[in-house]
């Protein structure tokens, strides 16, 4: 994810899905339970997205899973410092497959204005990111846009992808072992 692989999933062989896979993929897309890893400003915009005016529930996402075991989508909203990095990685490792990561806002995606000694310059240094949402903080529309992008990804993912060698190799490049939960 995050890396070259995505493109393959969308354009390559993963594109031809069987009917079952299509059904499962659309079920997954319509029922993504998010784990909001909200640390700062973007968390407030995420709350606004949850609220009545934008209503994440429309996407079947109002059930927040604070337990990583039940979550499908890790929404990282806000600054991730170097002190927090290992915790984020642990949360990611605890999530069950299939899992996706949405980096919301400049800080989570790249460090934003906080190019400092204490801030991680983008969470993609420690975990694979599927979709980045720009903005500081992004408007709820943009967060929803990111979620739609994730849906696009989910709907084109084959059931076997998570067992593939490429996927394992990709995780390995982040020092994440499949069994290390």
């Amino acid at each position: 994810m995050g890396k070259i692989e995505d493109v393959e999933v969308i354009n390559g062989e993963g594109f031809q899905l069987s009917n079952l896979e299509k059904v499962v993929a659309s079920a997954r897309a319509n029922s993504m339970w998010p784990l909001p890893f909200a640390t700062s400003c973007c968390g407030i915009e995420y709350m606004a997205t949850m609220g009545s005016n934008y209503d994440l529930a429309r996407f079947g996402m109002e059930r927040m899973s604070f337990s990583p075991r039940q979550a499908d989508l890790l929404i990282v909203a806000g600054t991730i410092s170097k002190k927090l990095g290992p915790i984020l990685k642990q949360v990611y490792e605890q999530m069950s497959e299939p899992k996706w990561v949405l980096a919301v806002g400049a800080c989570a995606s790249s460090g934003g204005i906080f190019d400092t000694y204490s801030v991680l310059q983008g969470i993609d240094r420690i975990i694979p990111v599927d979709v980045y949402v720009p903005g500081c903080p992004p408007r709820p529309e943009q967060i929803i846009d990111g979620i739609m992008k994730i849906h696009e990804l989910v709907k084109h993912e084959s059931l076997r992808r998570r067992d593939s060698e490429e996927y394992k190799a990709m995780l390995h490049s982040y020092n994440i072992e499949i069994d290390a939960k």
Partner: protein
Amino acid sequence: MQSLSNRKKVVSNKKMTFLERIYLPAIFGGMWITFKHLFRKNNTLKYPEEQRVLVPIYRGLHVLKRDEQGRENCTACGLCAVACPAEAITMVAAERVKGEENLYREEKYAELYEIDMLRCIFCGLCEEACPKEAIFLTDRLLPANFERDEFIYGKDRLVEPIDQRIDISKRQHTGKRTEL
């Protein structure tokens, strides 16, 4: 403690009346409030299908303006890059050569102009800093994307297309002031 300001007023009353003690009236009152909302029209924006009209001065995606003759305004002075708190702007200046007068308004122009949209915090300081009416923030939203590289917006995506001009006339930094 004595009052510091002479304006103090105790606002929290912790004594419960009998009706409050037996839970039910308050519970039914609360349920009545939520019940009324059952019939209220929701004001949810169905986002991808409906779009909210943003204020004209919204600080969204940048645009590099052209003048009336379609020439790029930017003269690569670098003020925007200096003013950027996120250090997201990169530019390489070049001298205009003969024959390019219809492309660039000033004698210098930006050969390369990149904004790292993931770094950008949309504070609008570049717009304020620009002395040449070249860079503006607009009321367009930046889409999410899959790859970090795709957020480096070069001139291909920043400069307004010559046939689809972007209206920024309502922003205050155009020199016109919105009157009350």
